[in-house]
């Protein structure tokens, strides 16, 4: 007999929020794993991109505690390969935004050492601030 999964209110609200911010219909994900298979960062992640999709789909808010969304660098490898035409990088961005919009930054901008400041190209610093501060 098929088992029906019912999301609680909090879960539904979370899924709705992430779908709204990302513009992606996350529930279309088939869990084929192509995104995780091609992700160049997957080794450094604690859960895979396809797990991010699954957990979000099921309204599991603990996905926010994972470091995966912060490791994702929006390289769009998953985006061009998803057979369901889903943009996983947008889902990562939505998850990051939920945290950043609570004024929780992922980088302390004062931590740049003088040595790094002499070496780093402007584009690296601008990019990191855009992705890691709200």
């Amino acid at each position, binding site marked *: 007999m098929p088992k029906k999964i019912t999301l609680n209110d909090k879960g539904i609200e979370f899924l709705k929020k992430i779908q709204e911010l990302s513009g992606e219909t996350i529930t279309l994900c088939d869990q084929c794993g192509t995104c995780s298979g091609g992700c160049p960062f997957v080794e450094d992640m604690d859960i895979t991109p396809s797990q991010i999709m699954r957990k979000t789909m099921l309204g599991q808010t603990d996905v926010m505690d994972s470091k995966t969304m912060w490791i994702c*660098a929006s390289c769009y490898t998953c985006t061009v390969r998803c057979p369901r035409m889903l943009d996983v990088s947008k889902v990562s961005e939505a998850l990051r935004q939920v945290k950043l919009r609570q004024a929780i930054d992922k980088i302390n901008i004062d931590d740049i050492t003088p040595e790094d400041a002499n070496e780093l190209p402007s584009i690296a610093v601008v990019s990191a601030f*855009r992705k890691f501060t709200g």
Partner: protein
Amino acid sequence: MKENIKIPYFPGCTLKTKAKNFEVSAIEASKMIGIELTEIPKWNCCGVVSSLSTDDLMKHIAPVRNLIRVQEMNDSGQANGNRLLTLCSMCFNSMKRTNQRVKNKPEDMKSINDFMYLEKDYLGGVEVIHYFELLDEEILGRIKEKSVKSLKDLKIAPYYGCMLLRPKDIGIDNPEEPSVMENLISSLGGKPVKWDAKSRCCGSYHTVNNKDIVINLAKGIIENARKSGADTIITSCPLCAFNLDNRQKEIIKKDHGFRTMPVFYFSQLMAVAFGLKEEFIGLDGNYIDPKPLLKEKKLI
């Protein structure tokens, strides 16, 4: 023969600071093949890295401002044509994405125009292109013609990275099997290397606060190039260049047996092939000294 091309050009922050050698080599090499890059006035940040959430319009303001500069150049007759050219892959990606977004979503265009009430409205007429999109048969022919020093002994791995190819509707070539850089290398007389890592991410901005990720990825990319027989890697992105070139310093710290490999901006090899002065090639700006390799191949 087609006429010379004069095109509005957006440098971006890094071409004015750490990647001056990219800009000077590209401008000077382009002159040789009848392409004149006219820097747009009063440009600002390209809006990197493209903001991906549906409601975050603030981050799209910067690119739209730059597009308005091109629109103004056209209105005042300073430019002919609606194209804006970038050399940096990241500038290309973020400005093209924003342009596409405001063109496809009139409500976003209106919000941004309303917010920037001191600027003229952006009307959506500008097209953002990357330098490589100029390389049609005609221009490749000119490149072949102007190449006085043959790169035939130089095995070159074309590194596309992410921003030139993805996502599909932004990319300038097939995201899995691109060929535009190979065509350029062949026209310069060089040997394009077939390799696996040409569109693998270099780790991007993680280089700021998560260096180790970048070190591992860069090492993998360089070793893949080496294994595939490459002498050097070329790129059109100053962030990829930093991660692949400068970060080799960190790779060596972790792996003493690592063999370094010079990394060029594609335009530097154009300048080499065209026999330009060393100040136009800008070799001092490269971290891993490329001079021994170029001397060995009798190119300088």
